Each structure stands twice: as C-alpha cells, then as structure tokens.
C-alpha cells in the first residue's frame, strides 16, 4: 500500500527558497493539464508549448507575490489562461476580454433549437474516434470566454470555485458561462447525431 493517491500539497515556502526538487514536482504534476488546456484554447501545438513554458517562467518570477488566496495549481491555471488569451488576441486582435459581461445580446441564441433525442445512440457511436474529433472541433467553435470555462470545469474537472478563482470571475458568472457553453455544444452535437440516428420507421 502506498500513499501515492493522496499527493502532498505543494510548499510555497520551499519553492520560494529555490527548492528545485519541489519545483520539479510541481511541474511534473501540473504540466500535463496546463498543456492540454493551452492546446485546446489556442488549437496549435507550437503555441501551446510556448504557453506552457511561459506559464512556469512567469510563475517563478511572480511567486514572491503569490498571496495564497487560491491554491498554487489554480494560480498556475490563471497564468496559463492569461497567456492563452494573449496568444489568441495576437492572432485575432478583433476580440474580447475576460472581464466584460460579454455579448448580452447573444443570450437569445442559447434557446435550444435542436430537439432531437439522440440518447439512444449506441455507446460505440457516442465514443467513436470520429465523434471525438467532432467533439474537439465543437469546443473550438465556442468563443474563448465560454471555451475556457468549459475546459476548466468539464475537461479539467476543476470546481466552480476554482474556476472562478482562476479566471477572476464570480461563481455566478462561471455557472452562467458554463451553461451557455454546454448548451451550445449540445446544439452542435444534436445536429451531428441527428444525421447518424438509425431511422427504423421512415414515413411511408
């Protein structure tokens, strides 16, 4: 029996003291999720790798100012998200900021339109490679502001509170964005699966 399942929290004091072993442990434990998040945010492996490296370099520099109001991991996410958004802004300067209560006028667009019951889809189809590819593409269709919330909550499984802390948003705002993201994805998936539904009873 090992205790490997309950990882030790990271010691900010050790990191501040320049403990490289502790830093390596932090990088080892967090680089996977951070890379994955960055990759899905910017949809480009090279940019994602830059973001990954920048995140830790910035974290090292900013560590003395770390106030411990969130966990170290959440704080790293925050840096990575900001880096990702910066990359996106560079690529498409026409857009967004995380703070604005975006596109209120858009709200109507989230009314469910696709009403197809695809719950009976065979699991093999739901989890096929082709479906996976579509799922990833669908996430890319979300606006960055919705995408980041969805990725943190539903892909990386952070709590609402952690997501809110990492993004500097209220929990209410996180929940609202999460729902919008999920509803938009549901629309996309419904359209996708509607074409693949078995049709035992065509109208004669």
């Amino acid at each position, binding site marked *: 029996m090992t205790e490997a399942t309950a990882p030790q929290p990271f010691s900010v004091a050790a990191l501040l003291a320049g403990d*490289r*072993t502790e*830093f*390596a442990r932090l*990088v*080892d434990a967090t*680089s*996977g*999720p951070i*890379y*994955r998040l960055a990759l899905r945010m910017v949809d480009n*492996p090279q940019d994602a*790798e830059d973001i*990954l*490296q920048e995140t*830790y*370099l910035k974290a*090292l520099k900013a560590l003395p100012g770390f106030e411990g109001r969130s966990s170290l991991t959440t704080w790293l996410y925050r840096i990575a998200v900001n880096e990702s958004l910066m990359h996106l802004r560079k690529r498409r300067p026409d857009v967004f900021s995380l703070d604005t209560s975006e596109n209120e006028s858009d709200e109507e667009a*989230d*009314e*469910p339109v696709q*009403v*197809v*019951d*695809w*719950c009976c889809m065979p699991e093999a189809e*739901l*989890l096929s490679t082709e*479906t*996976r590819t579509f*799922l990833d593409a669908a996430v890319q269709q979300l606006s960055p502001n919705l995408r980041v919330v969805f990725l943190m909550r*539903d*892909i990386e*499984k952070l709590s609402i509170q952690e997501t809110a802390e990492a993004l500097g948003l209220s929990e209410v705002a996180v*929940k*609202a964005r*999460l*729902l919008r993201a*999920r*509803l938009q*994805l*549901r629309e996309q*998936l*419904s359209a996708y699966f509607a074409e693949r539904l078995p049709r035992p009873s065509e109208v004669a």
Partner: protein
Amino acid sequence: METHRCCDFLDSLGDYVDGELSPALCAELEQHMAECERCRIVVDTLKLTVEIYHTPADAAEAPPEVRQRLFARLNLQDYLQPADPASTPAAPALALRAGDPCPHCHQGALDYDGQLTLKCPVCGFAEGGCFT
C-alpha cells in the same frame, strides 16, 4: 407547448446537470419534463453532452518531447521522470546480485560463472556479464 415555462427552467439546467439543484426546484423541473417532451429531450441530451465530454480521451501528460523541452527550459533536466508512470513497470526489477534466488525458476541461488555472468545452477538462467 408551454414555451414560457420552458424558458424559466433554462437557467436551472446547469445546476440540474451537476446534481446541485435544490430539491424543490429539481422536483419542479422533473415534473415539467414529464409533461414536456421538448424539455425532456433538451435536458437528457444536455446531460449526455456533458457526460461524453467527461469521458477522458487525452493522455494525462504532455507529449514526451514537449515535457523534455519544458524541463530543459526550466533547468530541471535532471528531474525528468518517465512521462507515464503506468507505462513503466510497476515494480522496477532490482539489479540481481550473487546469492539472490533465481528469478526464473525460484529454485537455485544465482552465482557468478567466472565471466561476470550471474547464472542459476538449477535452470541455467543467466543475467548480466560480458556476453549477454
């Protein structure tokens, strides 16, 4: 179709999917779903959408070469561990030594054969040395 009531429920759907809706609202929503096929489908497919995305697809780690370059950039090369602990043997075999029980037949005790090879006198298992 009670469009108005359907809209009222829209805001609660996130909490419902996450199982965090208050029991009272939950009962109300489920009551409504029993009567409104449209909402039943929307809610069911919304739940399933979230479930599908919850099914892990990615490797937990960044690709090995990305990890390598990251560790190098951070001057942590000497701490680089294999990317996926699951892919390395759970209990790495310790180096064998003379006198150890033979890992093959578990009968004989390993001994050097004179050419730096550890050999089992019982089954002939050989390990290490100059010629293996």
